[in-house]
């Protein structure tokens, strides 16, 4: 029993990272109808920035904050330069565009001499520490992920329900035209949403760094956020969060109870099942589509 609880705890921690990446994807999708396949690469960039800043001598927390701010600026710039011109184009074109951005990000990171094709580790002030409760142990890295995700979700809830910008984002995600008529500047809003989404990706990257190390293929881990988002209904922020955590737990259980290799495909098998059985996701209210 204790073994199972331990397993679930580890799964929740990794699931939180999936959830954060999924959160960024859903955020952008709801507000701008763009599906961002480069979100995993944004996460990778955030992690690399944090590594670069700490090795430049910055303390962990300062590097963390700086990486998040820098990625938010990068996200806004990306929206302004690359994505705004294609607004309203067919979905396939936008999917290919974000795939291209992802490829470029990977190639550019690999081209930086110090970053290159190597694996880096991020020094944290709590490395090696762990929490104990009875027989349960939770490493500080995992605890940090769970705690930060919880705090971030609280902050996001406050932001969406307590600020004018949050209200504008919620309005635009329901009805862009309506929001526009009410005086919301959609262009500025899109930049803000991309900035927020890239900042969340950077947070996910910094949190994941001590667990999986930092390398150019981190973006592929970010692809698993798509199953998380779909399980949650692809359009619901709490759904994305729950989907990510469910996925993390399923993966960790599959790795323990099922033969080798099952862990790597568990997320994809689950998402195929969800798509076939309940395509609107587990948390969606089935609204009929307008014609």
């Amino acid at each position, binding site marked *: 029993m204790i073994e199972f609880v331990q397993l679930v705890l580890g799964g929740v921690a990794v699931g939180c990272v999936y959830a954060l990446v999924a959160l960024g994807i859903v955020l952008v*999708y709801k507000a701008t*109808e763009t*599906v961002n396949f480069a979100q995993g690469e944004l996460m990778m960039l955030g992690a690399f920035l944090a590594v670069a800043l700490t090795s430049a001598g910055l303390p962990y927390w300062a590097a963390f904050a700086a990486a998040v701010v820098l990625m938010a600026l990068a996200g806004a710039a990306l929206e302004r330069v*690359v994505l705004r*011109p*294609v607004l*309203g*184009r*067919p*979905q*396939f*074109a*936008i*999917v*290919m*565009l974000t*795939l*291209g*951005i*992802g*490829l*470029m*990000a*990977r*190639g*550019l*990171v*690999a*081209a930086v*001499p110090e970053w290159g*094709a190597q694996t880096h580790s991020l020094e944290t002030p709590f490395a090696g520490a762990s929490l104990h409760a009875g027989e349960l142990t939770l490493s500080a890295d995992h605890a940090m992920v769970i705690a930060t995700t919880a705090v971030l979700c609280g902050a996001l809830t406050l932001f969406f329900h307590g600020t004018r910008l949050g209200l504008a984002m919620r309005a635009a995600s329901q009805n862009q035209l309506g929001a526009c008529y009410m005086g919301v500047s959609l262009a500025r809003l899109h930049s803000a949403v991309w900035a927020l989404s890239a900042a969340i990706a950077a947070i996910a990257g910094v949190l994941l760094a001590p667990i999986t190390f930092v390398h*150019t293929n981190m973006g*592929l881990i970010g*692809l698993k956020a*798509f*199953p998380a988002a*779909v399980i949650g209904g*692809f359009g619901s922020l709490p759904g994305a969060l729950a989907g990510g955590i469910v996925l993390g737990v399923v993966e960790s259980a599959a790795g323990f109870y099922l033969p*080798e*290799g099952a862990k*790597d*495909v568990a997320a*994809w*098998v689950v*998402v*195929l099942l969800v*798509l*076939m059985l309940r*395509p609107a996701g587990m948390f969606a209210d089935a609204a009929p589509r307008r*014609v």
Partner: protein
Amino acid sequence: MARTALAVAAAALLLAAPLLLAEYSLAQLSFICIYVVAGAGLMLLVGYTGQISLGHAAFLGVGAYTEAIAQARGLPFPVSAAASGLLAAGCGALVGLPALRLKGIYLAIATLAFGFIAVEVFARWEALTGGNAGMAVAPVVLFGHRLGEEWEFYYLCLAVAVGAMFALANLLRSPTGRALTAIRDAEIPARSLGIDAAHYKTVAFALSAGATGIAGALYAHRIGFISPEAFDILLSIELLTMILVGGLGSAAGVVFGAAFLIAVPQALILARELLPEGIARQSGLQPALFGLVLVLTVLFEPEGLNGLWLRLRSRARRGGAAPGRRRAYRKSERTP
């Protein structure tokens, strides 16, 4: 008249290629032919039916593994290649099933999932596939004759590629082809005209996967050694890049795209000798370049190389200003 002359000249050049080209260049030409076959399949699905697939590398893999296993068991090439196509088509129909209900992004994720699962199956079904160690593939044996020479294999690839393009062109003129483009352009009006969208989408998926599977059979012989990681998501993205850069919704775009896909790595090999040491040895150069081309294509030339070619040609003919861009790929609904 000029068109016929151009076609005859192109055909003559392709047939005479073994006389004109060194073995290495000929091998690259075989690669282009193989990518044309896969591209014809993917173009049918993405360019003409408007469905997104992020898992086509897996169909290529299914074809390649089927071919390798069947040839190792002594089946003749026509049978093994047909089996590759049929098995991949079967997988395609299966993956297409969610396509009946799913649109856009959901379909992309379903095919992405299929791609990851397929690679894992290739890696884990060791008794059949040799697992992560991969398996060697011998040259094609056709009617008791071993196609060991590069030029013999080239003619086989050329024949299959011409067949695939011919099939694509004919299919598009048939009622089925018209139904597919109708679904792409406006699904709900098409359905209200009595087109069974679910049926045609499944057909498109199966045909597309089948063509890609046959390409996979040739691919296995061409690279001579197959392993699971050769068929991962990055190859799927490359295949999509091929048809997007070539020009969505155009048969000529398949050929342009395949040539582009082969030419870029070759150009990079040449460029590396000219570039300064530090940049030239970067492994990330090729993905970065592909990414850049993807972004630039979507932003500035959505019709790809085919659109560029059409504009250049009409400019040359008129000797004046080129007409504006047409939109070849259109969808009435943006939201899934």
